[in-house]
């Protein structure tokens, strides 16, 4: 049977890096084909070429036997290729119908469109109300909008880029049912992911990319997660080591913490209550958009609460701002590296001052001590293996992994009593991620209380002592990690979402 899409010798280079190097593979008709690889393997670039967002340097593509080289997404859509991005292209202040219309080539009139949206979304088990503002929808519902947008154009090939990073385990199940239904109707699916278990349960064929090259093709149903991981990474990963210690005193005590979100489309915290002991790592899981940013802001001091809602070593600090909390030993590292944890255009030295001013004694009577600040920055660079020519380089010049090492290192070197991090290894290459996780474990072993907020369940399972799930602004009761199964975690995370299994 002729394949739907044939990719032959595709290459693409950017200044300084070869994103794709002579990539070739086929996608069959009605096939669910996985594209596997780590961060930086070249998956996104490849699909952007298929979707017409990026022009290829060399190679050919053939769709249904005819040459295929779409110059724009518009052209790709006209040829029957649709894509659901990892980062949604949605407009929060517009409603579902308007968002869908914007993603279509030649949308019908609003009233007709609204009706079609209702019909198609019901049929595929992803019900949507066309008149709701997208800003009011959960991440899973927003993904439905993206999918419906694609489905209304009867695509032959549906590309999905890391679709489950924002879904609960139950929502993942619903998505898979929908994809299988599409497959039975003859649509091919190109499924990009690094989640091996999911690929095993869903896909029939897989192409593995590493550093821009194809390093293997396989049938996931016949492989084990381990064998696919080895193809992806190519070397054995160093799993962080953890020493078991007797837990110490309660360091961080949250009681009834309720804080409104500063973002009109955000999730407010409701009655968060938990304690963290010295030497413990608390993992807080949850899909994006359930209050993670708000929780970090409530702990960093960017959002204020009642005094006793947040207690550090039995002292109420809920009313204090970021610098007062730093002085007392509560440090945080937010999710967004550039623009929040660090100022992109400022040097690493200046960024070291950002949070280090107080605990590292870098200011006297309001006047700055630049030599001392520089020395602090150099210490961070040395101890955390930050690859950079020096501390005078602008933050934005560093790669994601190196900047993250700097940001986390900056907080760890300040000897916190309690450190809270949000998505510490997001978008970071494997070795830097391992280094960061080890550093967090070492910090806990030294007696600090550590809270890790992360969407990466594997990571949390690896480094946490106890686990709690954040859902719609509420924190579940914590459970010790030992013996916790993925299903139980999924249920803790699922919470109050309105779930429906499609009519399979």
């Amino acid at each position, binding site marked *: 049977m002729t394949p739907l899409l044939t990719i032959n010798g595709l290459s693409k280079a950017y200044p300084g890096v070869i994103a794709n190097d002579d990539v070739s593979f086929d996608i069959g008709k009605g096939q669910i084909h996985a594209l596997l690889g780590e961060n930086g393997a070249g998956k996104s670039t490849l699909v*952007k070429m298929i979707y*017409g*967002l*990026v022009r290829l340097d060399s190679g050919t593509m053939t769709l249904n036997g005819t040459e295929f080289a779409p110059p*724009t*997404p*518009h052209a790709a*859509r006209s040829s029957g290729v649709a894509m659901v*991005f990892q980062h*949604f*292209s*949605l*407009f*929060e*202040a*517009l409603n579902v119908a*308007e968002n869908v*219309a*914007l*993603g279509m080539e030649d*949308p019908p009139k609003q009233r007709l469109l609204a009706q079609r949206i209702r019909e198609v979304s019901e049929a595929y088990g992803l019900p949507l109300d066309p008149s709701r503002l997208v800003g009011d929808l959960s991440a899973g519902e927003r993904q439905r909008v993206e999918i419906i947008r694609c489905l209304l154009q009867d695509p032959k090939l549906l590309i999905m880029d890391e679709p489950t990073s924002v879904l609960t385990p139950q929502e993942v199940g619903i998505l898979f049912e929908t994809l299988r239904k599409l497959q039975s109707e003859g649509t091919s699916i190109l499924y990009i992911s690094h989640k091996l278990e999911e690929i095993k349960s869903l896909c029939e064929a897989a192409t593995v990319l590493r550093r821009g090259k194809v390093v293997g093709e396989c049938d996931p149903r016949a492989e084990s997660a381990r064998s696919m991981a080895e193809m992806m990474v190519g070397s054995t990963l160093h799993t962080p080591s953890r020493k078991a210690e007797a837990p110490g005193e309660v360091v961080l005590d949250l009681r009834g913490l309720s804080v409104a979100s500063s973002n*009109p489309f955000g999730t407010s915290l409701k009655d968060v209550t938990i304690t963290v002991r010295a030497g413990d790592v608390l993992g807080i899981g949850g899909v994006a958009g359930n209050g993670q940013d708000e929780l970090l802001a409530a702990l960093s001091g960017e959002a204020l609460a009642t005094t006793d809602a947040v207690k550090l070593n039995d002292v109420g600090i809920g009313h204090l701002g970021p610098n007062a909390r730093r002085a007392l030993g509560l440090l945080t590292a937010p999710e967004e590296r550039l623009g929040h944890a660090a100022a992109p255009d400022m040097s690493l030295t200046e960024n070291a001052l950002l949070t280090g001013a107080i605990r590292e004694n870098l200011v006297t009577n309001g006047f700055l001590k630049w030599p001392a600040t520089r020395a602090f920055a150099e210490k961070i660079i040395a101890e955390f293996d930050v690859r950079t020519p020096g501390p005078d380089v602008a933050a934005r010049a560093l790669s994601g992994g190196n900047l993250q090492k700097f940001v986390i290192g900056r907080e760890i070197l300040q000897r916190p009593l309690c450190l809270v991090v949000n998505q510490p290894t997001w978008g970071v290459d494997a070795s830097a991620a391992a280094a960061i996780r080890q550093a967090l474990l070492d910090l806990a072993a030294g007696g600090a209380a550590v809270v890790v907020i992360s969407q990466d369940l594997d990571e949390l399972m690896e480094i946490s002592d106890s686990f709690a799930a954040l859902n719609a602004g509420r924190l579940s009761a914590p459970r010790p990690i030992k013996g916790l199964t993925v299903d139980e975690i999924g249920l803790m995370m699922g919470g109050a979402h309105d779930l429906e299994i499609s009519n399979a």
Partner: protein
Amino acid sequence: MDLSAINPLILIASLMVAATPILLAALGELVVEKAGVLNLGVEGMMITGAICGFAVAVETQNPLLGFIGAAIGGALLSLLFGVLTQYLLSNQVATGLALTLFGLGLSAMIGQSYSGVTPPPTSKVDLGALADIPVIGRILLQHDLMVYFSLALVVAVWAFLKFTRAGLILRAVGESHDAAHALGYKVVRVRLLAIMFGGACAGLGGAYLSLIRVPQWTEGMTAGAGWIALAIVVFASWKPMRVLLGAYLFGGVTVLQLNLQAAGLDVPVQVLSMSPYLITILVLVIMSSGKGRASQNAPAALAKSFHASS
């Protein structure tokens, strides 16, 4: 003080005339801001339109051509702003201010030879017997073409934004230029077109001042009308119908204080002259504070530079 000298019907009719330049400029700026661009150069574009329209009208002795010339002049000047902010990624606030300063200087230069000249008169639209209807006739039906044009423009802009695909794309670009770009829409092109539309409207507004309202050319004759137009867009929560309300409100205050001055009200002239500006500030404060959280309706990408990274 003789308040009886103030005729309410004439007051309302003249407030419509006073409001028209600001209404035109504000509508243009509304479209620009809905696309996510903050153009503070409205004052500069208005005054450029004023002199361009004046010059063309005087040279051709045709006021209609004057208005067309004003629209073109405003649009060309706004193109400078467009190129700088959309292609060269300059800071929108600074560039808008530069536009204003440059526009004021440029117009003063062009206007050197036109001081004291009388422009060709613009006639009122002749609606025949309709204009003689008591009350309504005097208020609504004895105006010149531009007043009716400005009202029609309000409806046109409203319909464009709400019902057309182009309007939807414009709003999307103003909400999230990254998402719009990812979907394949030409963000820069949409914004540039919006900017030029804004320039044309501001130019028309300025020409209304020099050709009809005053009618004469004087350096700096816009006297802050462009800034008032910007304030009105905020006051209107970026909704076209409310822009109409805001412009007429401001026109009303302006005309009222002039009438009160003429009627000999026992308040210093300067205080009355200050009042429109003070009232605008007051309105801005009310709109931006508790009542309605107007800033919530601002296009999310307003004033942020867009650089296509892929």
